[in-house]
């Protein structure tokens, strides 16, 4: 096979760090090529260089054997390079079709684009509704839009940045089928990930980056998770110990939580019932867009319309209380969106502690700057957040480090009930292990924890009991020992025992 893309000695210096240092990469036609590395290893910079969004300081790029300089993403697209970013670049107020239309040649009419989206989406088994406004879509749904958008340009090289972080096992399998088919048709794929299993299952070749340098070029099918991990982080990830522990009294009790969505494309919650006890982690699986956002908003108090008595914390009705009131009762929440919801992007980490922590608010609402900064510094130190101190703006942190900070901010508050959405989305192996370890430690300390995640591996690793959310309804809980990936996967389509029976009767849970 000929070389589709070749990078020779690529280097990129940023003010503080050398993001790429003498990187060489060779991608053949029709090859699925993994780029493995932790957050901050230089993967994103390298991809942006290939995609023309960043200009390298040194080195050469060859496309089909010819030296090229890719001046802009438009030039990259003209060559046949398409990219699906980890952080999506979609306009919230526009519909899916309008978003896709924006990135295409001007010649096509919107109805034609809509038709092609439907056609491509159906062809690859991707569920996308072209007429929906993007702001109503969940993360997983947005990703499908990005992938469809990339596929519409019929790329010769498709770059995917952490594509599976929000997909179900079945959806991952579907995506892999799509990618294998694309590769068989001759499309080269650059697959950026830190998920070792996936790389070993999918990719033909793997280039490992650490600290901006290539630390290995291997055939992933011949490697073990441990050997890949050593190349990536220089060590094997720490093993978590999940000691059996008897659960304590009920902390969170949800019953008969039925709620119409605020947004016409939202999901209605339908008789949701669940319990979380002290000292246990309950994991909630589900494909994104099945009511997770709505349930989380009702539990956190961001949506205070839940029917009275449907949400109880230590037996006390909190269904209509504000988030601050719930927090005073010990309910802390880590949302899925870090920038803009879990943290204010332009504000410092110190200021961001004030969103959920009131230790620094003194008499007459006067802010005690030193207390606030000390709190932020403590979280930074305890959770090994890589940041330029308490004064660093939230948006200056990488996704993983900001997540460590936000999770740390809530854990540091010594919550009695912690609700976490997507705790390790887009977070590197080391940070993910740290976050999971902290969640387990918190559980061992007697806190009740509800984790909502679209990563099944993670839920199986840390949960005591598992349940599934589908179409706004929640399944009964299953001890993790009795759960299998296949069983939970089936439940994710809404098919759990008794699911049909609860359709008519409202008092199924006892």
């Amino acid at each position, binding site marked *: 096979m000929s070389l589709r893309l070749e990078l020779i000695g690529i280097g990129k210096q940023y003010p503080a760090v050398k993001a790429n240092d003498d990187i060489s990469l060779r991608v053949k036609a029709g090859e699925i090529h993994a780029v493995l590395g932790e957050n901050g290893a230089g993967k994103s910079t390298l991809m942006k260089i290939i995609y023309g969004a960043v200009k390298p300081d040194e080195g050469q790029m060859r496309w089909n054997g010819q030296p090229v300089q890719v*001046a802009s993403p438009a030039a990259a697209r003209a060559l046949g390079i398409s990219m699906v970013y980890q952080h999506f670049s979609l306009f919230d107020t526009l519909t899916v079709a309008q978003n896709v239309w924006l990135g295409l040649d001007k010649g096509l009419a919107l109805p034609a684009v809509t038709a092609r989206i439907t056609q491509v989406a159906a062809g690859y088994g991707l569920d996308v509704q072209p007429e929906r406004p993007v702001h109503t879509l969940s993360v997983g749904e947005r990703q499908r839009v990005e992938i469809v958008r990339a596929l519409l340009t019929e790329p010769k090289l498709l770059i995917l940045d952490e594509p599976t972080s929000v997909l179900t096992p079945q959806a991952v399998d579907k995506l892999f089928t799509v990618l294998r088919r694309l590769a068989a048709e001759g499309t080269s794929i650059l697959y950026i990930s830190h998920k070792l299993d996936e790389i070993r299952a999918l990719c033909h070749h793997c280039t490992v980056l650490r600290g901006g340098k290539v630390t290995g070029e291997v055939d992933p099918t011949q490697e073990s998770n441990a050997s890949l991990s050593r190349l990536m982080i220089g060590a094997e990830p720490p093993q978590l110990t999940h000691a059996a522990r008897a659960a304590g009294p009920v902390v969170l009790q949800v019953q008969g939580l039925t709620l119409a969505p605020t947004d016409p494309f939202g999901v209605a919650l339908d008789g949701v019932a669940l319990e979380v006890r002290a000292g246990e982690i309950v994991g909630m699986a589900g494909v994104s867009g099945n009511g997770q956002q709505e349930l989380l908003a009702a539990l956190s108090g961001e949506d205070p319309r839940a029917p009275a008595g449907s949400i109880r914390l230590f037996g006390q009705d909190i269904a209509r209380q504000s988030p601050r009131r719930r927090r005073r009762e010990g309910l802390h929440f880590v949302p899925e969106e870090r920038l803009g*919801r879990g*943290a204010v992007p332009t*504000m410092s980490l110190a200021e961001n502690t004030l*969103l959920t922590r009131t230790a620094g608010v003194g008499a007459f609402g006067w*802010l005690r700057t030193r207390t606030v900064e000390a709190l932020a510094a403590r979280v930074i130190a305890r959770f090994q957040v890589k940041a330029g101190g308490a004064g660093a703006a939230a948006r200056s942190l990488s996704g993983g480090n900001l997540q460590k900070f936000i999770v740390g901010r809530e854990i540091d508050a010594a919550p009695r009930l912690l609700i976490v959405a997507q705790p390790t989305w887009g977070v590197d192996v080391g940070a993910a292990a740290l976050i999971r370890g902290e969640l387990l430690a918190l559980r061992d300390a007697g806190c009740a924890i509800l984790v909502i995640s679209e990563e099944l591996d993670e839920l199986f690793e840390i949960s005591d009991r598992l349940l599934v959310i589908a179409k706004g309804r929640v399944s009964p809980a299953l001890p993790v020992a009795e759960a299998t990936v296949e069983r939970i996967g089936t439940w994710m389509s809404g098919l759990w025992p008794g699911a049909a029976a609860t359709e008519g009767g409202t008092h199924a849970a006892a």
Partner: protein
Amino acid sequence: MLRLEPRAAPSQAMTVASPLIALALTALVAVVIFAGLGTDPLAGLQVIFIEPLSTRRQISEVLLKATPLIVIALGLAVCYRANVWNIGAEGQFLLGCLGGGAVALWLTTQGIVLPKAVGVPLVLLGGMLGGMLWAALVALLRDRFNANEILVSLMLVYVAQQVANALVFGPWKDPQGFNMPQSALFHSSLLLPPLLERTRLHVGFLLALVLAVVATLFLFRSFRGFQLQVGGLAPAAARYAGFSARASLWTALLVSGGLAGLAGAMEVAGPIRQVTPYLSTGLGFTAIIVCFVGRLHPLGIVGAGVLLSLMLIGGELAQSRLGLPNAMASVLQGLLLLILLACDTFIHQRLRLTRSRARPA
């Protein structure tokens, strides 16, 4: 080839330098305009930017005019930081004139003479309540009916002007005023004490400086101010934290309305001394420019208020001395804001000189 590139982090230096560069460019454009109008450009600049600072009396006039600009802009900064776009400060200012005027006229016509330390604060309070009332209408319409506050606050300016006219041409007309459409002069015990001998500058200027410090503390050292700004910067984060968006909306509008009203009361209880049909001179709109030139920061606003006041007075001087059209001051104001917004591009982006690549053969 020149290219705009996003910066990794917003440039602090450019945040501060942008208004200064904008001022320099505005002066440059002014030179071109002067030349086009057949006026000596240097003389023009001298009259507009230097002459108003040449004598003690002139300086006092600049500070006098800066006072309402600063006070209004402080309130607008709180509002804009909360992402509430109140552009009707002019109307709230007018209601402040009327509120303060109502108190002053009632006391004057009733013949009640209070000590200055009681009378003046009462007049100022009346002004603040008037401004808050007008801003509360905006808040109510936005809160209850989801009306757009930009449109509503702007349109209420014209309503305020008609209310003022109705009062001055009607019930408030001075019986001894030869049927002139203006109120009686306020009793001297209700006027703001002078700050400098033999000038019109009054203690309101000191109050403006104090308010700038208070606004700084409110915005950057109080939890309430923090909540307002979170609501403005990231509404979802404010919802997540549990900060009330309604409370922010009302606080922002009542603070800015109250301060615009206070500025109005200080005008009628200061240099004007009565209610006339000519109270609306656009100070409430100029204050928007002050607010942005001052970077929405209270201390920056003090400087920007003095600068815009200087340009207003300089514009008037240019009209009388050099025969330049009286629109000159407005033109310069508009240019300053426009150029400033253009310069602000470079806070988040930078220009890079890139070699143009050879065209493919």
